[in-house]
């Protein structure tokens, strides 16, 4: 479903990704763990198509098709979703206007009709209720005046509404208290499905107690250095990343 082959990327001439390879199958929840500066967030940005990074080598395949030449919106229309570590505030753009624009843009690219206003409002309300997002929040400008936890919940709302097939979650647990973490994790778990894959990027094992992964990849110095099952996350929590950093140096 998502296949990354020997991916190299740099920013302003500085190499960050140095040959990442991994595969995520339909229905799989894969976690990427790693120390700060290992290239986890860069990987998520390169998958989503952020311009600041230059891909010097490798491929990112979505259902067998290389998406590296596509614009971010084209990747989104193919079912890719990135939940941002730091969702941006956009003053003057109403949340509902944004949600509708996103949903209809994707439908249009897939050759579907625009959603009817009634169906749109019902869908948003249904998803918002589950995530504890109030009508008042939906009336505000996008993410403006939202707390860190509210912004993360808004990311999950967008994910649920857009129904992507591949969800990349970049440090979704950062800045969340225990209650907010549970709401967000429940939101993600509710979306787990046979035809949907997740790539969960996190620094801590904590999130993975709530979203239990099928696979855990450990990233260090721009490479995947080891891969295992859910138990690998616990091992890391106990021992730290030091051993793996030395693996990367070999």
């Amino acid at each position, binding site marked *: 479903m998502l296949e990354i082959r020997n991916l190299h990327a740099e920013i302003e001439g500085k190499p960050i990704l140095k040959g990442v390879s991994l595969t995520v199958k339909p229905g799989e929840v894969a976690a990427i763990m790693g120390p700060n500066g290992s290239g986890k967030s860069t990987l998520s940005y390169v998958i*989503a*198509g952020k311009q600041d990074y230059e891909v010097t080598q490798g491929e990112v395949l979505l259902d067998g098709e290389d998406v590296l030449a596509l*614009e971010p*919106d084209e990747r*989104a229309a193919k079912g890719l979703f990135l939940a941002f570590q730091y969702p941006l505030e956009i003053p*003057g753009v109403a949340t509902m*206007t944004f949600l509708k*624009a996103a949903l209809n843009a*994707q439908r249009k690219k897939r050759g579907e009709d625009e959603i009817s206003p009634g169906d749109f409002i019902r869908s948003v309300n249904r998803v918002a209720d589950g995530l504890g997002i109030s009508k008042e929040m939906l009336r505000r400008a996008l993410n403006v005046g939202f707390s860190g936890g509210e912004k993360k919940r808004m990311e999950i709302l967008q994910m649920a509404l857009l129904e992507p097939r591949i969800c990349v979650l970049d440090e979704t647990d950062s800045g969340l208290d225990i209650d907010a973490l549970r709401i967000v994790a429940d939101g993600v778990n509710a979306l787990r499905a046979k035809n949907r894959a997740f790539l969960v990027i996190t620094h801590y094992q904590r999130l993975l107690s709530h979203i239990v992964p099928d696979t855990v990849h450990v990233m260090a110095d721009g490479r995947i250095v080891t891969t295992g099952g859910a138990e690998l996350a616990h091992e890391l929590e106990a021992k730290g990343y030091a051993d793996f950093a030395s693996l990367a140096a070999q």
Partner: protein
Amino acid sequence: MTALTPVRTKAETALMAQFEALRRELPKKGAALAARQGAMAAFAATGLPHRRIEAYHYTDLRNLLREAAPLAAAPTPGVGESVEAGRFLGDLGAHEIIIVNGRAMAGPGEGSALPPGVTFAVAADPTPIILDVSDAVVALNTALARETVTLKVKKGVAVDRPVHVVFIQDAAAAQAVFARLRVEVAEGARLTLLETHEAPNAVATQSNIGVEIAVGDGAHVEHVRVNAEGEQALTLSSLGLSLGRSASALSVNLATGSALARHQILARFAGEEAKLTLAGVTMLDGARHSDTTLVVDHAVPGGQSRELFKTAVDDRAVGVFQGKIIVRPHAQKTDGKMMSAALLLSEDAAMSNKPELEIFADDVQCGHGATCGTLDDNLLFYLMARGIPRREAQALLIRSFLAEAIQDVSLEGLREGLGGLIDAWLRRRGTR
């Protein structure tokens, strides 16, 4: 010493000849003629303003106005009855006054349709009450406008619906229109005034419109001007505003038309404790040039002024903002803030921003700011990562940037109409 004989440009000579021709048609004596002659003499002494005149530094009219188009003839009968005129903002249920080629029309816009307490007249005397003929554009307007359309709101009258003054050019070939509107809002009265300007795309029209609004003590005026003249239009406009004691006014200018546009504002605080907000949205593309130059004159104590001007500049277009806040020696407790922000949407777009403060009192709060920037790549990426295509994502961000300057318009239908003009410009941009 040898007297200098100014070398007149072709356009200056033509404008002076036009005045001579007009003078033969108008009454041969009286105050009106004296005012016109005085204004023309002031113009003759200086000629068209050029870049060495500070206020015209970025818009050199002597260079840009090469040909003075002939004065517009009387309009085709029935033109003012067109239901389309002025309706591009949607149906606002406004009282309409229709001015075609500078002449007030009978018909649906006839003064009799106005509500009680509002009077309408066409005066012959063009002497400005706020604007100053030492400015060449105002001088030409004073000398060459045939009619001064005068609207008065009586003391204490709150006009229920907006009054919409619809300026139209009925033009088949290049022509020039000079028009003048004077609005006097007496003590404690309330008025929403909309002025719109339309001219055909296919013709190189020229216009020089002077509008004066005197806001009486405790009166409140909301004024919206929309420039939707054609793609080849040369548009000169002057707005004079005066505020009585405890008066309040909002004046918003939205410009989406014209090849060359200059909108100048002179706002004077005549009574204490008055409040003024000036705002503007200018949308530029192609090789267009648009200049907003304003002076806010705090002549008395306790005034509050706010200016917020937003400009989006695309292609090779050029935007200009010059704003000056003057605080006179006795105008203590003045509170003035001015902001001009521009969004450059292409590599070749240009913007000149010149905010100024001239403060002669010591107990004041004044500030100004000016920014020129491009769209934030991180915000664009965020929107695009949700599936929104680049042009549409840009449009969302540009709209939110511009719409801040119209948010104080209190009439919802009018605010939506203005938002619709922003959307229309963005749609045109999106399809190019």
